[in-house]
């Protein structure tokens, strides 16, 4: 497998507050990448910068060999880098069906719309039952499914999931885990931020511990790691 995303010396933040300090990482070499670490230490900020929602102050982001540091989110989506943001806010007044069509908005995704929709329905059959329901009235977990489903409609080449299991029931988590695995096996690598370490370990051979806005530890495949070690990493800071 080859590297699809490289982040080098990235510094970013909100206004005068810098959240990310000289952060470097890469994704794709060993398959999926997992990010973890305490709350509020910059994981989401990293993802937002990668997908162009936030402008980097310095450093570079390379996707598929091309520099995307200064590109607009639209251009980045057009390249197939798809980001599911944290907190499933989505489009509260649109129906699930509408969200799916929006997911396929970019010209890249449009030809695959029908095929992707089938895929999505297979992964989340529950959504098909509620095709016309407004997102606003969905339960928390259902909304999470719609978020991920919308991203899948965008025909991703790299899929970034920010806390995808938030509020999901255990069984759905399982199914989600299985289906994302399937997606990644289908050639779409993932970057996943997750608090549920079991989930992360199951999915990602390569892990980064993000702390204080920078990568503190990288865990490569083969470096088997104990659950308790991770816990101590959390508590250590």
């Amino acid at each position, binding site marked *: 497998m080859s590297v699809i995303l490289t982040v080098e010396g990235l510094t970013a933040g909100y206004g005068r507050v810098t959240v990310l300090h000289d952060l470097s990482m890469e994704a794709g070499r060993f398959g999926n990448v997992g990010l973890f*670490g*305490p*709350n*509020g230490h910059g994981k989401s900020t990293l993802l937002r910068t990668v997908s162009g929602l936030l402008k980097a102050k310095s450093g570079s982001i390379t996707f598929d060999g091309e520099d995307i540091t200064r590109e607009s989110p639209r251009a980045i989506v057009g390249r197939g880098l798809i980001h599911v943001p*944290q907190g499933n806010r989505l489009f509260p007044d649109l129906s699930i069906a509408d969200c799916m069509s929006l997911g396929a908005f970019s010209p890249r995704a449009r030809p695959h719309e029908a095929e992707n929709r089938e895929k999505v329905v297979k992964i989340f059959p*529950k959504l098909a039952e509620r095709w016309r329901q407004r997102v606003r*009235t*969905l*339960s*928390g*977990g*259902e909304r*999470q*499914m719609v978020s991920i489903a919308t991203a899948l409609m965008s025909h991703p080449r790299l899929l970034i999931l920010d*806390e995808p299991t*938030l*509020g*999901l*029931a*255990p*069984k*759905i*988590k*399982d*199914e989600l885990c299985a289906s994302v695995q399937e997606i990644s096996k289908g050639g779409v690598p993932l970057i996943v931020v997750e*608090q549920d*370490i*079991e989930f992360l370990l199951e999915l990602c051979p390569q892990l980064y511990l993000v702390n204080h806005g920078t990568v503190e530890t990288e865990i490569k495949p083969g470096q088997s790691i104990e659950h308790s070690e991770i*816990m101590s990493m*959390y*508590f250590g800071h």
Partner: protein
Amino acid sequence: MALLEVEDVSKAFGSLKAVDGVSFKVEAGEIFGVAGPNGSGKSTLFNVITGIPFGPDRGRVKLGGVEIQGKSGNEIARLGLARTFQRETSFDGLTVFENALMGAGYGKPGRAESEVRERAAEALEFVGLTSVGFGRLAGELSVFDRKCLMLATAIAMEPRVLLLDEPASSLTKPEIETSIGLIRRTAERGITIVLIEHVLTFLMSLSQHLMVLNQGRVLAAGEPKTVIADERVVEAYLGTRRPAA
């Protein structure tokens, strides 16, 4: 007599029966867990019990033997039934202390102003928000602090029953540990707790009774260990991911 009794409560949205004839009882002092697949009606159940934003279509809810369904949300709250919301919410334009004052001042009738302030401060200390600073605007807090603040406003009401909707979602492991301790101590204050949670370790380590909903109906209820061993629960809710009990 049970402190909170829910009898045959239902709520439908159009043709969708979100809650469909649910009954259960919660004894004073216990922690009562509620689980179930996404969209099984857990949050809706909380909604109809508390009357926020709507009451049940039918069925009865009794708090300490008194029927409360049909009363308005703030009345029910003042009778001693507090709740938190699935998303962390706060009064963003108010300071941390003022947030707590809302619970302390309006959640329990007949308090003197000095007592209100004491209660508010005490509740904030209890959840450990002293370090954050009472003067900070709630809108600026981190996720975990907001969750704590939401809990503090509820505790400041000194409710008889507290309904917690997914207090652990989006928390890190250490934060979950902290939360577990916090909820235990809340129960020790004599507040009866009903708890919705998907984080199973959290749910299992806290609840004395567990009820699992599915498609708006009670799928199983009873001793937590027995409930999660129930085939139907595994099938509908747990899948392969049983907690390391």
